[in-house]
């Protein structure tokens, strides 16, 4: 007999391993601490400061080195203990599953998270006001909500192109820019109101979507990604260099602010506050903007959900699965692709004109490749094609970096010069790596069928 071949015998050995190996674990953790010591001597132990005279002086930081080593030791020990426990439990669970043949049915995550997220989104201004003790004090949270919702909307828009139709688009921010500049130019040059400009911006962006769609009809995967990436850069470079048209890198400023369907948010006579008999508060405009983007995002969501049940939406999904099969089933892939590009771009156009009306200022700086990457990351992390996943990912990707601002207490650990914000991209990368290891298909990878029987007996 080579190994414990029966399952019954395997369990005790696993359990024994977790407890009896404590000395071995301590040794292992000590080794880790030793490596940390070796690494930190050249990197951490000495800091060069400008001395009293002309040269640099060395300041020893041995306390910090000792702290690091101790931290690594404790963390490694904890990790070993936890991992041992986890693997023991997993073994126990597989055993239990092998015994009872009934498979555990996973609860659909959307049933709780979805309505909860929507509820919080609908009442956020109220929650923020109550939580911070006043509307003005809650401004930070409402602004953050606006930011997150903008990305939720962009994520949902890109989800049509990438998640449903399976066309990898790295230049999505170009359509966002088209929307923003459409509003900025139409309102400053022609004096059109936001509500006239919004559909026009969507239309222009959709036009650009078709424009991008035509040359890339025959491309897929990597090649498509490269061309869309170039498209995004072209739009940005045109905006920078065509100074007469777009104001160049200085951008366009003094864009008219949002009004409540024609009633401006001003303090004087005829302003929002006096018309509705309220005391003037600059927060009225912020709350209005919040609900505006919420409605826009929800419209995006509803349209997408509706499209998935229509023949065109199903054709998008089929296109993502297999283009050749699509064609042999009589689906015109040209129309299907162009419509996905156009609709996705249209929502980016809406979001863009919202961005312009909120900021009152647009410049090419706001539409660089990093924005495209963040939006794409939101879609991929959320789980391609999952509406709820995109929303959750947007909250995590946009909201989490904001939390870094509140990590000031870490200065006590890492010294005065420590600024958590500088580590934003580092954490961003770490989160991505962790996601790809543990949830490679996204936060919510389960695709909901667009049709199913009302009630099935089995």
């Amino acid at each position, binding site marked *: 007999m080579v190994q414990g071949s029966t399952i019954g015998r395997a369990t005790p050995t696993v359990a024994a391993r977790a407890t009896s190996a404590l000395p071995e674990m301590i040794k292992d953790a000590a080794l880790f601490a030793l490596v940390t010591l070796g690494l930190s001597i050249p990197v951490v132990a000495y800091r060069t400061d400008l001395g009293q005279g002309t040269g640099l002086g060395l300041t020893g930081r041995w306390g910090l080195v000792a702290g690091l080593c101790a931290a690594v030791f404790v963390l490694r020990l904890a990790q070993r203990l936890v991992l041992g426990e986890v693997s023991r439990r997993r073994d126990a669970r597989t055993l239990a599953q092998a015994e009872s043949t009934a498979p555990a049915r996973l609860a659909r995550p959307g049933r709780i998270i979805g309505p909860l997220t929507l509820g919080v989104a609908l009442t956020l201004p109220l929650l923020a006001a109550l939580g911070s003790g006043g509307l003005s004090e809650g401004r930070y949270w409402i602004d953050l909500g606006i930011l997150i919702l903008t990305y939720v909307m962009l994520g949902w828009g890109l989800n049509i192109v990438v998640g449903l139709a399976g066309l990898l688009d790295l230049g999505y921010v170009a359509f966002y820019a088209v929307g923003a500049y459409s509003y900025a130019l139409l309102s400053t040059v022609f004096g059109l109101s936001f509500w006239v400009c919004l559909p026009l911006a969507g239309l222009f962006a959709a036009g650009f979507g078709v424009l991008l769609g035509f040359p890339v009809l025959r491309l897929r995967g990597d090649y498509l990604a490269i061309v869309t990436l170039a498209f995004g850069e072209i739009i940005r470079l045109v905006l920078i260099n065509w100074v007469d048209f777009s104001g160049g890198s200085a951008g366009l400023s003094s864009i008219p602010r949002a009004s409540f369907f024609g009633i401006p948010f001003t303090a004087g006579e005829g302003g929002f506050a006096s018309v509705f008999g309220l005391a003037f508060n600059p927060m009225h405009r912020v709350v209005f903007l919040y609900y505006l983007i919420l409605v826009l995002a929800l419209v995006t969501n509803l349209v997408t959900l509706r499209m998935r049940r229509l*023949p065109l939406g*199903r*054709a998008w*999904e*089929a296109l*993502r*699965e*297999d283009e*050749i*099969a*699509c*064609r*042999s*089933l*009589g*689906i*015109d*892939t040209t129309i299907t692709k162009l419509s996905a590009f156009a609709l996705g771009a249209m929502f980016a156009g809406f979001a863009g004109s919202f961005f312009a009306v909120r900021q009152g200022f647009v410049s090419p700086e706001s539409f660089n490749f990093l924005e495209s990457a963040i939006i794409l990351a939101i879609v991929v992390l959320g789980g391609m094609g999952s509406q709820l996943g995109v929303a959750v990912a947007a909250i995590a990707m946009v909201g989490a970096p904001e939390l870094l601002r509140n990590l000031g207490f870490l200065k006590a650990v890492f010294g005065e010069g420590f600024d958590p914000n500088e580590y934003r991209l580092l954490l961003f990368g770490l989160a991505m790596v962790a996601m790809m290891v543990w949830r490679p298909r996204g936060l919510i990878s389960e*695709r909901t*069928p*667009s*049709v*199913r*029987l009302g009630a*099935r007996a089995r």
Partner: protein
Amino acid sequence: MSVAGINVLVDETRARTEAAKAPLLSVRGVSAYYGSIRALKGVDIDVNEGEIVALIGANGAGKSTLMMTIFGQPQAREGTITFAGQDITKLPTHEIARLNLAQSPEGRRIFSRMTVRENLQMGAAVNGGKHFAEDLERMCTLFPRLRERIDQRGGTMSGGEQQMLAIARALMSRPRLLMLDEPSLGLAPLVVKQIFSTVRELNRTEGLTVFIVEQNAYHALKLAHRGYVMVTGAVTMSGTGQALLDDPQVKAAYLEGGQH
């Protein structure tokens, strides 16, 4: 349907076939190229209404290329392809698919992340899903396994079930001609038998015309009324299914050891 009813239907089909002398699908002198490589060298094939026609041949003989050329991808550079009296040589694939001509492509190509029901919906997309409920019921009767798996994702099914789904998906458009590309590929003999007998049943009861491309020559010729043999891009032999089965050359080249 009673036996007498089936007989009436068969008689009707036969009568219709004889009345319409022109074949349903006719391929005349078709050549197709991959770049500069001539994959089809002037192929002539006819499929009459109500027939099962098999095309057999070795790997790389051009069988699947012919199937794809009929569907316009690649388009034939020489020759003409006519379906139901209409020249379809230069039509794009999706327009050909809208002419009551359905294909179950090689390698099945089902939509793996979509459920069985959604796959079938895609098959009905051509006629706008007018008779969807009725046709869905028909497919579930034809392939009871699909009824069991109706809300399961296509990619999680076995190869045989996927092949059934691919055929059912093609049938959802109510085609006059069903083209099957290698339906036995990678399937267990028992499943192959099951699928072939369903095809035979469809032909007998509904008069469905079938054009089948196969490497499994024995089963294909057993099933077919007529057959063609293809070698390096050209048709070298044709005849009734039984005649080809009995032909010593065909026996030597395609049937030895293949009978199970």
